């Protein structure tokens, strides 16, 4: 099923691990050379810089080539455009396969760009065909138009994306496919009428939790080792939708738009209390679980979701003036961070607040973020007395994630 040579991929990961161990001085030079000679792979490791460069320039080539293609063969109406998109997509796909088979590219930027372009082109073609089929003339000559819902389009696109994600073991396409599937799932539940509307949040929670646990369990399965990134992405997406399904703001906005009603002041959504609790408690549970399992993804998601949860409840219920809220939450954050840093100076349960090697790159990014924060300060001195120097958009603070 996978396009890459399995032995090649295995040897690739052996080589990567060996290089890391050799760098840390865990294996000797002879051992490293021996491993390199024994585990030969046709796939070469590439840095993120090369990936970005190759991706951008491949996209430029594909777009210019599509432009030429359309100029040479003036498409005739909708069907013509759809047909040319289809041809272009298939061509891109063939070239992508060829780069893997012949030039042994492994996630090189070129293959990814070609594959994504192919899927977009074929996707456009499919959508045009569906749209075309839904309009036409009845036997008596009257025009009919049967509008298909989003789910109908997605149902045709999803198999293609899933197949590509599996064949190329691509994490991004896995995320796209998961997004499609959860939207289809929601539309199917809503077909059940008012009962569907009632159970939608809970059904999404169950669905996400099931995806998360399945992906987590399968990740340990050695037969699925080539799809580990995809499963990791599913874990992440499952956790995100699990939270969003019960987030107060999401539930409220969706129930307003789906039921077509507005919630008057003084009223609230059904089971409001449950959703308030969910909005705050689930992120806390993520953090706690993450610390227990030493799972960085859970911890980070939990921290971001706490902020999102507080903001989404505050959006509807403001109990204090903004500056008091800012100060109190600031004090709370500083206190939590300060106390944890001090508490964890001595490692406890294998958790420490001291930096490790992986932090070095993050520091480089945050140093740039600092400069964004101060820039505005000298330019317009103290006209709104912002003691911290910046507007409280935070000058790229979130880019640290």
């Amino acid at each position, binding site marked *: 099923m996978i396009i890459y040579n399995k032995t090649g991929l295995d040897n690739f990961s052996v080589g990567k691990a060996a290089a890391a161990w050799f760098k840390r001085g*865990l294996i000797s030079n002879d051992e490293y050379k021996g491993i390199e000679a024994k585990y030969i792979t046709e796939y070469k490791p*590439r840095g993120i810089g090369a990936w970005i460069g190759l991706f951008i320039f491949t996209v430029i080539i594909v777009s210019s080539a599509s432009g030429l293609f359309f100029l040479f063969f003036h498409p005739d109406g909708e069907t013509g455009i759809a047909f040319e998109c289809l041809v272009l997509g298939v061509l891109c796909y063939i070239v992508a396969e060829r780069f893997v088979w012949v030039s042994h590219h492994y996630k090189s930027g070129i293959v990814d760009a070609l594959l994504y372009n192919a899927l977009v082109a074929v996707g456009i073609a499919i959508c045009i065909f569906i749209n075309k089929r839904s309009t036409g003339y009845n036997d008596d000559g009257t025009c009919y138009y049967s509008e298909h819902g989003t789910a109908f389009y997605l149902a045709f696109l999803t198999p293609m994306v899933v197949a590509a994600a599996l064949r190329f073991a691509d994490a991004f396409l896995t995320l796209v496919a998961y997004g499609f599937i959860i939207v289809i799932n929601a539309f199917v539940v809503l077909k059940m009428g008012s009962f569907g509307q009632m159970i939608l949040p809970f059904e999404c929670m169950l669905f996400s939790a099931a995806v998360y646990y399945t992906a987590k369990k399968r990740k340990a399965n050695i037969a699925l080792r080539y799809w580990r990134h995809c499963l990791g992405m599913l874990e992440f997406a499952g956790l995100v939708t699990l939270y969003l399904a019960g987030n107060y703001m999401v539930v409220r906005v969706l129930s307003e738009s789906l039921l077509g009603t507005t919630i008057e002041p003084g009223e609230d959504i059904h089971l409001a209390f449950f959703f308030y609790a969910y909005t705050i408690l689930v992120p806390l549970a993520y953090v706690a679980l993450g610390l227990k399992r030493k799972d960085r993804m859970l911890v980070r998601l939990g921290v971001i979701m706490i902020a999102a949860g507080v903001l989404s409840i505050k959006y509807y219920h403001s109990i204090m003036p903004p500056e008091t809220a800012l*100060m109190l939450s600031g004090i709370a954050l500083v206190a939590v961070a300060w106390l944890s840093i001090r508490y964890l100076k001595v490692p406890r349960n294998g958790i420490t607040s001291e930096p490790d090697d992986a932090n070095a790159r993050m520091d*480089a990014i*945050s*140093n740039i973020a600092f400069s964004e924060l*101060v820039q505005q300060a000298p*330019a317009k001195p103290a006209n709104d007395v912002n*003691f*911290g120097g910046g507007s409280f958009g935070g000058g790229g603070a979130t880019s640290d994630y």
Partner: protein
Amino acid sequence: MNEKDIASKLLADNSISSESFNKIESARTSTLFSLSFELRAVLYCGVLLLSSGLGVLIYKNIDSIGHMAIILFIAAVSAACFVYCIRKSLPYSNLKMNSPGILFDYILLFGCLTFVSFLGYLQYQYSVFGTHNDWVPLISSLLFFAAAYYFDHLGVLSIAITTFAAYIGIAITPLGLIKNNDFSRGYSLIYSGIALGFVLIAVSWALARRNIKKHFTYTYVNFASHMLFVFCLAALFKDGGYIFFVPLFFALVATVIWQAFSEKSFYFLLIAILYGYIGLSYLVIKNLISFSSDGALFTGLFYFIGSSIGIIYFLIKSSKRIKAA
């Protein structure tokens, strides 16, 4: 296949000795789970929220507090931060020093932020520097440079560079570089930007040659090269001035590519290629548009295809070269 499986597999076929296997296993199991980054991010957000809240609170109550009291308060906070840092920090050294702690970095940063607010407030309310509004960023940036070198803090160095640029009148933070500079104002902004870029590079090389904080060079060169590229591009996009700026721009691209190879930095190679491609394509398209025929459109598309194939070939070759060297 995780690290453990790979290690067991290699042990089984005698690729590694059991001694190495034990080393790998103990390194794997004894690695601590570091929350350093997460906690610092929370601390950063907390400081930001707290200072914004405090700022709004003071602003709303300005009548009952009075400007002088606020200025004194800000000064006291800033001074307290610097006193804390001086007491905590290790003695100065020309070499890279490890930070005394996570909190130290933030308190130093907070001290710097409040210092700018202090000076800015003083100038805004009492015009202590008269009409010299630009003395605020100048004095701040001098203090920041001193603090960056004394305390060995890359974040403060970045602030110092951007504040100094603000003194000259340009914004060089990642977002501000494009957004806040009014390039249409004529060439003076462009000339000062380009001059500042060269000055920064010269200073960083001179200091690195004397072994003074060699690890700062990257920050200087990073800011300077982005600034040089953006200002040269801005000059290209303006009409006229080609004779001077076109050679300068491509000389710059060539120099950065050459430096990227000798420093084995793919990052600088990539930014040189991207900026260079934008400049080259701009010139090509601009000249093609003046023909305004169907042939020009075809030629343009063929140019994009051909040049991109060339660059992809170059990228693959150079990624091998940078890795192999």
